[in-house]
């Protein structure tokens, strides 16, 4: 058969060139699709008594010993369906909310890590345990709802990192636009966002927390029918395998209640009694007394509108024009800045500077508010001064 060994060697080289078959398969990023047949066939070259034999291909079961391309067959298995969801709250931090506010949002990220499209049934609830180390307070959120982002699912890098990617720039919960309660279909490797939305009672206290939980159960895409996993022997068809117990994922998030919380200290001092010498002034009739009100915001939020009303003691009369070169009645200091206002008698703020006084049944009440009082940031303070004369 072979005139010389040399010719056989060249024949073998030709065999390799003719026989080599390049298969390059690109794997789906999310996983090979269910029902794909994975096939493998090996081959053996060998010699007997120094004589090279025809190549033999493999077969499953008992194997194959028939040489050549006609012998052997694929050892195969079919790819099953992997149901695998991934859910995480976004940004690993609580959402700060103000008492009395409505439609406050915590955001959750959800991605399909399986190899087939799935629907997702969602449910939301207040969570009794701790989140970020804080438990919920007694004043519970009301009207707790959930909505799925209405924009089409994202894919690629937008779904991959960090642990729970935030929505792409510009995407945010929009009441009335994001209305879906469940996810009809989420393709493999795609992701979207789900919002838990709630109202915060006015009675909620600064520095307290409310925790919520969002749960997702993988379902058949579009129909949202329940999935039945095959935990028994492999079948010839596509079996469903749950990567998550009961095909369920969940995560928790938190609302942090923040509001302004004022501490008011009222101090008074006799600044002159027109009889004694400093500093021995006494609170006698005719003496001038200065009241200093210090308001400190110990809350977690800026107070936008602060109004102080102070009823003067009956034994005193308001002393106007005490400040600013005898032109202003009240002095307001925030940090290094001092401003003034005129507290008109008669209950009407004619010059709209935020200050006025009212007298009723013999009691004079001073009111100091915007624009005289600026907003007070968390940990900030404002000092208000005015004077009276002891009657």
């Amino acid at each position, binding site marked *: *058969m072979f005139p010389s060994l040399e*010719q*056989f060697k*060249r*024949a*073998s080289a*030709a*065999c390799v060139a*003719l*026989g*080599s078959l*390049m*298969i*390059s*398969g690109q*794997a*789906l990023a*999310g*996983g*090979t699709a269910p029902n*794909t047949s*994975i*096939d*493998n*066939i*090996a*081959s*053996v*070259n*060998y*010699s*007997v008594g*120094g004589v090279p*034999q*025809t*190549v033999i291909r*493999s*077969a*499953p*079961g*008992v*194997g*194959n*010993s*028939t*040489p*050549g*391309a*006609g*012998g052997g067959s694929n*050892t195969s*298995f*079919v*790819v099953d*369906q*992997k149901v695998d969801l991934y859910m995480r709250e976004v940004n690993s931090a609580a959402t700060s909310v103000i008492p009395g506010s409505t439609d406050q949002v915590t955001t959750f990220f959800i991605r399909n890590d399986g190899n087939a499209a799935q629907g997702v049934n969602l449910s939301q609830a207040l969570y009794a345990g701790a989140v970020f180390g804080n438990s919920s307070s007694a004043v519970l959120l009301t009207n707790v709802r959930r909505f799925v982002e209405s924009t089409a699912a994202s894919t690629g890098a937008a779904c991959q990192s960090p642990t729970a990617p935030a929505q792409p720039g510009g995407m945010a919960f929009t009441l009335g636009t994001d209305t879906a309660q469940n996810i009809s279909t989420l393709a493999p490797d795609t992701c979207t966002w789900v919002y838990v939305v709630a109202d915060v009672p006015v009675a909620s206290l600064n520095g307290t927390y409310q925790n919520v939980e969002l749960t997702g159960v993988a379902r058949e895409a579009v129909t949202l029918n329940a999935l039945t996993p095959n935990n028994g*022997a*492999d079948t010839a068809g596509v*079996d469903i*395998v749950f990567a998550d117990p009961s095909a369920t994922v969940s995560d928790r998030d938190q609302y942090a209640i923040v509001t302004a919380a004022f501490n008011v200290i009222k101090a008074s001092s006799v600044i002159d009694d027109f009889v004694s010498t400093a500093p021995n002034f006494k609170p006698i009739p005719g003496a001038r007394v200065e009241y200093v009100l210090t308001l400190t915001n110990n809350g977690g939020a800026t107070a936008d509108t602060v109004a102080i009303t102070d009823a003067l003691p009956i034994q005193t009369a308001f002393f106007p024009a005490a400040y600013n070169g005898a032109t202003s009645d009240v002095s307001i200091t925030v940090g290094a800045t001092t401003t003034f206002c005129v507290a008109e008698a008669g209950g009407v703020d004619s010059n709209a500077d935020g200050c006025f006084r009212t007298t009723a049944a013999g009691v004079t009440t001073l009111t100091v508010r915007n624009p005289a009082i600026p907003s007070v940031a968390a940990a900030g303070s404002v000092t208000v001064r005015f004077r009276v004369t002891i009657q």
Partner: protein
Amino acid sequence: MIKGTRNILAAALLVCGLASQAQAQGEQGCILLKSTAEVAKEVVDAKGVKTVTMVPAEKVVPGVEVTWTVSANNVCKQPSEKVTINNAVPVHMSYVGGSAFGAGSDITFSLDGKTFAAPAQLTVKENGVERAAKPDEYKHIRWVFKGSLAPGATAVARFRAVLN
């Protein structure tokens, strides 16, 4: 010269087995070649003791590791020499580096099916820079068994690959 070339081509076709008419029907070779696909299954017994057994590949989903075993059993009365097993890494699978095994064999890999070499010699050019090929880039595996395979004896080649 032309006659010699024709002989070489005919010889090549016969060796490769690509010309089916040249084969005698029903002729059996000396190697019974078997290929199996298995996955590791964890079994927990009544006492809670976990053991891992290999079972035929089932419930294979992306991420699962499959063990492919090729066994070559000499079914003739004479020894077989130069037993070489070739196996392409199946499509949709990625070879697990270091998992190829075959007692008494030299194992090499190929990225293109033409050049086979040890992992240290396999390189890939990426963005103009040459780097070592990664195991999931290997496309073919070859086991060359040293010595001869006695009648009735079986040479075993094994490797693991993950389903993409």
